[in-house]
């Protein structure tokens, strides 16, 4: 009898324990999510609401014109499109060049493949800040300062190591029979790469593309250092400018920040599994 009562007690404890665990997890979730909800709320407020009412109050009458205003008058549309095309071009170049290298390293036979791989892997450890002064000087000499090319080249170079790292894992597990058969049939290397290998790597290409997209979209220090003309700036640096001018206009600042994070959130909703996979795979990136 006593043991039965004890077992019952134990299961009650287990239940309470479980509830406490869930509670802890939910508190963390609220801590992670609520600041963004709060941001969205103040992006829809007027200044009188921000300064006159509680920060936790819902917007009385959603001020969607905050968004229209920053998009049309604050140059946010311009920064946004710069971010879009610079990100797209950099991602395409990085993924393509990294695929070439990974193919050559895993599929082709040559003397220095290990050394070349090591160069990419070590390149992964180098902090951007330790390269930025000579890079600035280099682009200055090539007349590429205040030219989007300096940004794109830097993005590609600094993201190649991580991209190759993620691709490598996939290439090693990929069966080679089809490629070998193609060689026997007299296929050229280019046809094998473009028509057989590259299409087979689509899942991992998606992972690397989304991870690259996030890094490039959010990048700050290269644009802040190499670009001086306003019409060439991307969102991260552009919103800095904008906020400098509209310091007390909370609604405008909120709307700008929401616009800058929306593409990432959409990508996340559609491709969250790929993002999680890419982050777990490239976890050595600091």
């Amino acid at each position: 009898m006593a043991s039965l009562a004890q077992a019952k007690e134990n299961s009650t404890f287990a239940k309470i324990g479980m509830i406490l665990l869930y509670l802890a997890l939910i508190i963390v979730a609220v801590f992670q999510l609520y600041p963004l909800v709060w941001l969205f709320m103040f992006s829809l407020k007027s200044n009188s609401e921000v300064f006159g009412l509680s920060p936790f109050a819902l917007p009385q009458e959603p001020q969607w014109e905050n968004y229209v205003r920053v998009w049309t008058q604050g140059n946010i549309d311009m920064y946004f499109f710069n971010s879009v095309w610079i990100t797209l071009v950099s991602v395409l170049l990085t993924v393509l060049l990294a695929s070439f290298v990974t193919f050559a390293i895993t599929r082709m036979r040559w003397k220095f493949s290990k050394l070349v791989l090591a160069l990419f892997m070590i390149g992964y450890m180098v902090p951007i800040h330790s390269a930025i002064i000579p890079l600035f000087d280099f682009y200055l000499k090539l007349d590429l300062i205040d030219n989007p090319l300096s940004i794109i080249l830097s993005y590609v170079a600094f993201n190649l190591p991580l991209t190759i790292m993620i691709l490598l894992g996939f290439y090693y597990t990929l069966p080679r029979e089809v490629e070998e058969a193609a060689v026997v049939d007299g296929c050229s290397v280019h046809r094998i790469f473009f028509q057989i290998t590259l299409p087979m790597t689509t899942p991992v290409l998606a992972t690397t593309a989304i991870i690259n997209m996030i890094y490039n979209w959010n990048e700050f220090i290269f644009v802040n250092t190499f670009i001086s003309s306003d019409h060439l700036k991307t969102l991260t640096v552009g919103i800095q400018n904008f906020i400098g001018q509209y310091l007390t206009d909370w609604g405008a600042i909120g709307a700008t920040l929401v616009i800058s994070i929306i593409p990432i959130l959409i990508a996340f909703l559609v491709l969250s599994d790929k993002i999680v996979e890419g982050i777990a795979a490239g976890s050595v990136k600091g």
Partner: protein
Amino acid sequence: MNKVMSNKVVIALYTLPALILILALIYGPILLTGYYGLMDWNGIGAMTFIGLDNYVELVQDSKFWESALHSFLLAIFSTLSLAIYLIISLILAGKIKGSNLLRKIYLIPMLLSSVAIAQLWIKIYDPNNGMLNSLLQTLGVENPPAWLADPNLVLYAIFVAILWQYAGFYIIIYYAALKGLPESLIEAAKIDGATPIQIAYKIKVPLIAGVIKVTIVLAIVGSLKYFDLIYVMTGGGPNGASEVIASYMYKKAFGIYDFGYGSAIAFFLLLITLVVTWLTRKLTASEDEIQY
């Protein structure tokens, strides 16, 4: 097979573009950083060789050591916070319904730019209209502090934003490692009457020790490189109270155009990054738990 797949022209065509990019934009610059560190140079005019003067100045520069101290403090906080992430991951990797959704919610801040995060947290910490102080006032705290303007609090305030940004990243890594553990081992321990806490502490954590060591490198190296968030949130202020190595370097180089001294700081940053990475790599040399 051999002939086609060892065609030197194709190999050069496939590897050289990427190789030239990293040699010209990563390896060249880091070597030049060390070299420029030996120069008196304003970035535009002529360079004058001054030997180790910049490095001697660095050793004696109290502002530099103050920012280095802040970087190391952030590294220590970040390393300690790994314990929290590990506990959350241990709970999450148990039999929890909705763990997939929770994990994704935790990750969202990590996907945002440091600039957006910095701007958002400036608003959260706003002394008059911010979320935090309103909450504190509702709870009865009179005169809550002006977080980012208070030299004694600013570093901690920034650290909370860093915690918010990176939590999901580390949780995802730990979760993946914990889910990769063999089920049979844990079942056996359960049959032997081990409690969940014993299983977590004595079996699961030791088994993912390799991954934990890797995350320690990530946390330390990442902290030593912090820049964007602090540069935007406080600019290193008030009065240097939140200055870190990278922001101090950036100010010297691109703020007052002392490229020689900036390079010396940047080279120092590279050296400690490599030493820390190498040291912890050495500690994890025999382990191979993390896939990359």
